[in-house]
């Protein structure tokens, strides 16, 4: 059983989704029970995986026992195990929200949710980039379904744009994969790492073009400026539960970029991306200032957090990359909390929805306002929540001397202030500028949504409590990315490397 652990995160959601489609099309209760059981099983498997690779081992699962460059391999190392656990935890928390109301508003919510999780797990675990493409597509197809769940004109129009953008991205992905395969003759990350130094000089240009094109694809998925335009509208109009899960999708792009560029192509760092990270931060923060609805605000906050993340990932030192990865987990939890909150406000206020406007008093205002206060603290990066620790660790790892380091400091600090302004403005308008006392007559926010919000906020709090071991863990994970010898050795069985 233990040997088959790495495939389970993909198998469990796949099987449970198939069972749901076959048996529970009409019985919502059965589908809910299956979904919750599946989430619990995924969480357990993710914990076991994390425990198995904590010491630095790399688990390799060869499907059909085919030797590596020929067959499909799943690889679990520190980084992918942590990402799988994050996905499982987020999925389980959001299901609590979903089973209260969202899954009733359209068909096939639960199977789509499970397929979405399956695609994300697969993208984190796969060891080659054609399967990365396949899992990206699984993830995207499910996300198209979830995005239009419940219908509505604005949602459909935005979903359409999201879909067209991502289809063009998928096309570029295939072009890039073929270019890399043409030059290097392999699709496996570890095998690619071995072959890149031996690629003939005449093929280097093709390899480089393929690599750059793949970077563009991953930056599009990660929503880095100038490829961020699709995110706020699409996520802001998606159903709350789905948008909260999508907070993780853009991180899959960042993860894939790290895996491909640092391990596969053997680049020493992604330093060229640092200016893009600054711009992403700025665009995200300005968007938060100007957002017309809480959903779009959460979308721009997600863009800003991608900016912080890439300031970390642009570093060449393990400490800085590790701080970026610590922030990745934090920003996923916070981003999801903001999306859930926007959704709760949207259903609590009859007339105004989640528009950033004052209006009638509504039931659960104090509760949601408190939640927004905490989520805003986390998103801006104020103590005591983990955003503060993440930004602090990140800034401490960047030397102020030299232009790029100083600029990173300036951008992170100034945009934090802008985020503070934008979130305070939105919060005081929505939660304080209320008239009348109509709150008593209406029913309060759904228990499941509040539970999900509380769990996510408790998650960021817990994440700040475990900051020291977590930072150490991610620094080791980043070290393994920068010096992928052990990874390559474990996957290909070839020891001589660099």
């Amino acid at each position, binding site marked *: 059983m233990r040997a088959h652990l790495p495939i389970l995160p993909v198998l469990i959601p796949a099987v449970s989704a198939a069972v749901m489609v076959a048996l529970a099309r009409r019985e919502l209760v059965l589908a809910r029970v299956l979904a919750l059981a599946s989430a619990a099983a995924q969480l357990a498997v993710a914990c076991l995986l994390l425990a198995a690779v904590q010491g630095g081992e790399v688990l390799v699962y060869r499907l059909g026992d085919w030797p590596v460059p020929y067959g499909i391999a799943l690889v679990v190392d520190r980084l992918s195990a942590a990402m799988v656990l994050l996905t499982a935890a987020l999925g389980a928390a959001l299901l609590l929200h979903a089973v209260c109301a969202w899954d009733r508003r359209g068909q096939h919510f639960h199977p789509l949710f499970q397929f979405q999780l399956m695609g994300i797990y697969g993208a984190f675990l796969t060891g080659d980039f*054609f399967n990365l493409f*396949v899992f990206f*597509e699984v993830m995207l*197809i499910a996300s*198209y379904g979830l995005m*239009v769940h*419940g*219908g*509505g*004109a*604005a*949602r*459909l*129009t*935005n*979903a*359409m*744009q999201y*879909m*067209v953008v991502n*289809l*063009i991205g*998928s*096309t570029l992905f*295939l*072009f890039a*994969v*073929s*270019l890399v*395969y*043409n030059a290097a003759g392999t*699709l496996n990350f570890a095998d690619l790492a071995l072959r890149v130094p031996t690629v003939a000089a005449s093929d280097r240009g093709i390899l480089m073009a393929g690599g750059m094109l793949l970077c563009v694809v991953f930056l599009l998925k990660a929503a880095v400026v100038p490829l961020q335009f699709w995110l706020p*509208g699409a996520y802001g*109009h998606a159903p709350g539960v789905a948008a909260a899960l999508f907070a993780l999708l853009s991180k899959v792009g960042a993860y894939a970029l790290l895996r491909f560029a640092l391990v596969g192509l053997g680049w020493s760092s992604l330093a060229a991306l640092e200016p893009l990270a600054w711009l992403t931060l700025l665009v995200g923060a300005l968007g938060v200032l100007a957002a*017309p*609805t809480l959903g*779009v605000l959460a979308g721009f906050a997600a863009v800003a957090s991608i900016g912080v993340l890439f300031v970390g990932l642009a570093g060449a030192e393990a400490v800085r990359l590790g701080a970026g990865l610590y922030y990745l987990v934090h920003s996923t939890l916070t981003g999801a909390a903001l999306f859930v909150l926007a959704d709760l406000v*949207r*259903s609590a*206020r*009859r*007339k*105004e*929805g*989640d*528009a950033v*406007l004052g209006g009638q008093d509504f039931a659960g205002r104090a509760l949601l306002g408190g939640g927004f206060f905490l989520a805003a603290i986390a998103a801006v990066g104020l103590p005591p929540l983990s955003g503060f620790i993440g930004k602090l660790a990140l800034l401490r790892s960047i030397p102020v001397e030299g232009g790029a380091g100083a600029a990173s400091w300036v951008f992170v600090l100034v945009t934090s202030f802008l985020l503070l302004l934008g979130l305070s403005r939105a919060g005081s308008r929505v939660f304080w500028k209320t008239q009348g006392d109509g709150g008593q007559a209406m029913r309060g926010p759904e228990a499941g949504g509040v539970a999900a919000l509380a769990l996510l906020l408790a998650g960021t709090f817990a994440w700040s409590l475990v900051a020291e071991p977590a930072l150490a863990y991610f620094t080791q994970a980043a070290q393994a990315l920068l010096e992928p010898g052990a990874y390559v050795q474990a996957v290909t069985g070839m020891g001589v490397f660099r």
Partner: protein
Amino acid sequence: MEILFAVLIGALTAAGVYLCCLRQVFPVVLGLSLLSYATNLFVFVAGRLTVGAPPIWGEGVTRFADPLPQALVLTAIVISFGMTALLVVLAIRARFEAGRERSDVPAVTQRPEVER
């Protein structure tokens, strides 16, 4: 052979990109289909063009075609076909619900409609 493939892929890609830049949904769907044809051909030639050679290496075979891109292209065809179908369905639903059939999003108004 190389020139034929290069021209074909180039023409399909150019037409696809042009159509994707239009604002109506139908040309965009056509453009994405053309782009996916171009991709499929491109994946196909990723293993270099070989004519009249077996796709399997065996005893005494010195010249063989790379079988992997042929397997990849099957996956790519299935996925792009499914995606196009989904996009068309979505376009039809958007046509009926939003009354418009464009791939761009209208500017956000000051007071957006409430979605539930």
